[in-house]
Each structure stands twice: as structure tokens, then as C-alpha cells.
């Protein structure tokens, strides 16, 4: 168990190092001059003195090794640079946006996983040739739709045509709701983006749960639970589902990364004020410090979520928690 977790920590530490190094190296290795990458496209409009200041700040006149050390030192101080367009510290800008993204992806993740489990369990129960082909093709069809396009269609139908829900944003502008009214307002704005994110991952969760459940329902221990005269509920929920959930836990981790990727396009469609939309704006404006900062923060969040899941997984599976003594 200890070895398992130490191994995981090491693995994620390596990923972290790769992400940080990529962030450092990419702008310096790209075609063009590093000063343009680090100073923005408008850098040539600046005076020579200002350009020299940028060169000195990033240590572009020093060796790559020295630059890397300086870069790491800045990072440890939480110094992610300043946005070209806004002039504000990147760290602060991200901190303001991150909660919205976490709210959006977290809600979508929980809903997608729960619905996937429920629907998958139900489908495995109602097994039959016709309903199988139907449910598989339906879920594959949904997963073939680009999530941003689904978002646009949802907006066009539910927000613009039917006027049931707000078109964009995370809160109604020019209002100062508080308390319950505020929560309601935030929830209203959350429905459509969450729906398009849920649809992005739901079919994968559904198919996995269904397959996993079918696998478990055919297992000897589920048969034994029936032979023991356990009730149908105890057989399905206690014995079968508990085991069928194990692969879902792994899928959950993969989905975290997936959700953050989906959040970028979804937030863009819905003009949702999260890190994803900020990354999109930064990419369009070629605001490299902001872009890199957002990439770094999203990566850290995803790696952190993965590490957390890996720490929680042994609670679900005793075989990992207490490796065998006999073998």
C-alpha cells in the first residue's frame, strides 16, 4: 500500500516536472525569437530600452540552464508573470476565474458519473439484443457530437428560441442578488454548460458501467450471493455494483482531464468566466504568459485530482489496500 502510493507520487512528480519544463522550453524552442514569444507580438513596437528590460527580466541573455533556474525560482514564489493585455499578475487573474471552472467541471463530473452508473446498471439488467444495439448506438451517437456544437445548439433552442434559460455568463449582469436568489441565478446559468459537458462524457461512463456490470453479474461470487438466498437488492447493489464500480473509479480520473479540456470549448460557447475561456482569449490574443499560466494551473489541478483519486482508490479495493500476505 505504502509502496503503491509512493510509486504514484513519484509518477505524478515526473508528470509535474515534464509540464513545468514544457512550459519553460516551448516558447524558447519555437521558431521565431524568444523575445517575441515572451514579450508578445507588440514587442517590436517597444523602444530598445523596453525590449532590453524584457530580455533582462527573463534572463534571455543568459544560458538556458540559468534561465531554467530563474524560471523555477519565480514559479516557487507563485510568480507567473504579467498578462500583456491586461497588465495584471497572471496568478491573480487565474485565481479569480478558477472557482467558476471548478464549479462547472465538478458538477458535470459528479452528474456524468452518477448518471453513467445508474443508466449502465439499468441497461445491464435489461439485457437483450435489441435494446443492446439501441443503447450502444445511441450512446455512440451522442459521444460523436462535438461538445461545443451541442452547447451552441442547446443555447439556440433553450435560451434563444424558448427563452427558458440564460444565454451566457455565470451570473446575470447588473444584478446584486444575494442568498438564495444568487444561488438560483448561478444554477440557472450552470444548467446548459453542465449539460453539454455531461453529454461529452456520459456515454463513455454508461458503456463502461454497463460492460463492467455485465462482467460482474456473470461472476461466481454474484452467483454465490444468489445461491445464499440473498435478496435481489443485496445481490445487485451490495455484491455486484460494489465491484462494478472499481473500473469507474479509474475512468473518473481520466474524465477529470477530459472535463478540463471540454471546459475550454464549453466556457467559450457560453461565455462562462472560467479559466478555460480565459485560456481561449489568451490564445487568440497570443497573450503567452496568461496562456502558459492557465496551462500550468489546469495541469496542476488535473494532476492533483488524479493523485487524490489514487489515494482514495485503495479504500474501494482491499486488494490494493492490503496486498496479499500469502503470495
Amino acid at each position, binding site marked *: 500500500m505504502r509502496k503503491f502510493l509512493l510509486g504514484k507520487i513519484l509518477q505524478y512528480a515526473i508528470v509535474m516536472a515534464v509540464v513545468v519544463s514544457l512550459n519553460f522550453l516551448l516558447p524558447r524552442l519555437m521558431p521565431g525569437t524568444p523575445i517575441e514569444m515572451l514579450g508578445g507580438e507588440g514587442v517590436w513596437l517597444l523602444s530598445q530600452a523596453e525590449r532590453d528590460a524584457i530580455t533582462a527580466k527573463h534572463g534571455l541573455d543568459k544560458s538556458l540552464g540559468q534561465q531554467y533556474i530563474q524560471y523555477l525560482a519565480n514559479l516557487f514564489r507563485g510568480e507567473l508573470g504579467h498578462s500583456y493585455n491586461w497588465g495584471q499578475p497572471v496568478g491573480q487573474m487565474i485565481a479569480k476565474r478558477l472557482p467558476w471552472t471548478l464549479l462547472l467541471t465538478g458538477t458535470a463530473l459528479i452528474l456524468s458519473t452518477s448518471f453513467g452508473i445508474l443508466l449502465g446498471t439499468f441497461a445491464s439488467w435489461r439485457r437483450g439484443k435489441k435494446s443492446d444495439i439501441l443503447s450502444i448506438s445511441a450512446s455512440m451517437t451522442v459521444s460523436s457530437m462535438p461538445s461545443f456544437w451541442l452547447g451552441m445548439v442547446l443555447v439556440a433552442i433553450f435560451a434563444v428560441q424558448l427563452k427558458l434559460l440564460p444565454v451566457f455568463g455565470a451570473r446575470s449582469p447588473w444584478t446584486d442578488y444575494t442568498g438564495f436568489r444568487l444561488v438560483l441565478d448561478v444554477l440557472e446559468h450552470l444548467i446548459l454548460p453542465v449539460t453539454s459537458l455531461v453529454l461529452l462524457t456520459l456515454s463513455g461512463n454508461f458503456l463502461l458501467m454497463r460492460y463492467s456490470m455485465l462482467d460482474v453479474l456473470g461472476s461466481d461470487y454474484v452467483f454465490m450471493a444468489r445461491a445464499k438466498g440473498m435478496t435481489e437488492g443485496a445481490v445487485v447493489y451490495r455484491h455486484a455494483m460494489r465491484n462494478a464500480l472499481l473500473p469507474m473509479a479509474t475512468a473518473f480520473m481520466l474524465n477529470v482531464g477530459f472535463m478540463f479540456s471540454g471546459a475550454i*470549448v464549453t466556457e467559450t460557447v457560453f461565455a462562462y468566466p472560467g479559466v478555460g475561456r480565459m485560456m481561449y482569449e489568451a490564445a487568440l490574443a497570443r497573450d503567452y504568459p496568461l*496562456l502558459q499560466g492557465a496551462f500550468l494551473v489546469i495541469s496542476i489541478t488535473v494532476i492533483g485530482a488524479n493523485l487524490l483519486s489514487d489515494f482514495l482508490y485503495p479504500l474501494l479495493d482491499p486488494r490494493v489496500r492490503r496486498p496479499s500476505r500469502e503470495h
Partner: protein
Amino acid sequence: MSTSRLREILKTFRRNPLGVVGVSILCAFLFVTVFADVISPYDPYERVGKPFEKPSTTHLLGTNDIGQDLLSEMIHGARISLGLGFVAATIAMTIGTVVGVVAGYAGGIVDTILMRMVDIVLVIPFLPLMILLAALLGPSFWNLVLVLSVIIWARPARVIRAQVLSLKERGHVVAARSTGGTVAHILFHHVIPAVLPLSLAQLILATRTTILIEASLSFLGLGDPISKSWGTILYYAQARSAFLTGAWLWWILPPGLLISAAVLGFAFTGYALEETVNPRLRGRR
């Protein structure tokens, strides 16, 4: 791969309803791609009408913000979207197959290092990394291909490696190894031919992913603005707020449906093919 094995695969494949539907969809798209110039009513790069025209007999799906025919744009978009997706997936699969075969066959430290790399690529959130790369490289067809293939190879590499590991234990490969066949001989005569059908299935499934991601990147304005893919059409539709007007019906709905249909075609074909060449998966349905 022997012809009898090929025939057997074809026979099993034909009995799979999903596979037949998938291949039919792909054939339809192939036709559109090849004959795009003949089918499309206008040159998609010419201004042939007034901006924001509604669908009419002259412009079946209306016109865009600068008066180009939307239907023609979508027909030509198939070339860019499918072509780019396919090229990127092919490159990714070549990398994936090589990595998978080498890791699985060599084993030991080589395997550990390669699989660690796969793990790393799989953990890093792919779209943010692609956006970063695409933004730094600048928008162009080949830059997009590069960005896509750099990320997509990891998952197939893992699948291929597992297949190679199980192949290594099979009779004829064990026999060839114990009788002192050279590594190159074993790889090219026994391992790679046996892995190819699975690679092909993975290639088709990877194309599905690359088409979707290309659409996302182009939608975000990181694609090649000159050669218009379906994602690019949607980017302009979004930029001109088409979903706030009735135009969403002909400007937003059709390109998305085309993307979905193409992706579905690849998904059905890939799944059916995977099931055909990998009998262990057949119980999955």
C-alpha cells in the same frame, strides 16, 4: 497477414450491423471528398451572394457573413476535416504502433521508460496543451497535424503493447524465437503482421478523435483560417453570433451534424473492426 485470415476478418465484419452502417457512412463521405468540386454548386472561396442570405433555391443553406455559399463550404470542408484527421491519425498510429511493438517486444527497462512516457502524455490535459502548442506554432494545416499526432499516439501504443505481450507467448512466435530467428525477422514476419489489423482498428478510432479535436481547435480559432474545415465554419458562426438568430438552423446545425456523422462512421467501423480482430472483446456487447 495471409489472405485467408483477411477473408475471415471480412466475413465476420460483414455480419456486424454496426460495422456495415459505419462503412456505408464512410463511403458516402469518401465520395463527397473525392468529388467535392463536381458536387458543390459554387466555389466556396468566392463571394457569390449577399451576406447572411437565408436558404433559397440558389443557396440551399444560405450564405455566410461575407456572402460565400455555405453548402459549398461544407462540401469542401469534408476534405479539410477528414483529410487532416486522417493524416494526423495515421502519423499518430505509426508512432503508437512502433512504440507499442518496441515496448512490448523489448520489455524490461525500454518498456518501463516508454510506458512511463505514455502515462505522462495521458495525464496531461490534452486540449490545453494543444492550444498552447497551436498558439505558439501559429495556425496552419501541418502545425495542426503535428499538434494532434503528438498527443494521440499514447493510447493506441498501450493497446498495441498489450497485444504484442500476448503474441510473444504464442506458439509460432516462441518457436521462432527459440530457434534463433533474428529480431528483425520475428518482428516483420510474426509480430507486425499479427498486430496490423488491430493497428488499423486503432487508426480508425484515432481518426474519430482527431476529427473531433481538430473541430474544437478550429472552433477556437486556432485552425488554418484559409482552408476552411467544418470547425472553422462553426468558428465564424460563433463569432457572428449565428445562434442568436434563426441562422443557427442552416449555419450551425449542418456542420455539426456532418462532424457527428463522420465521427460516428469512424466509431462504428472501428468498434466493429476491433471486435472482429480481437475476439476477446466480442462479449462486450
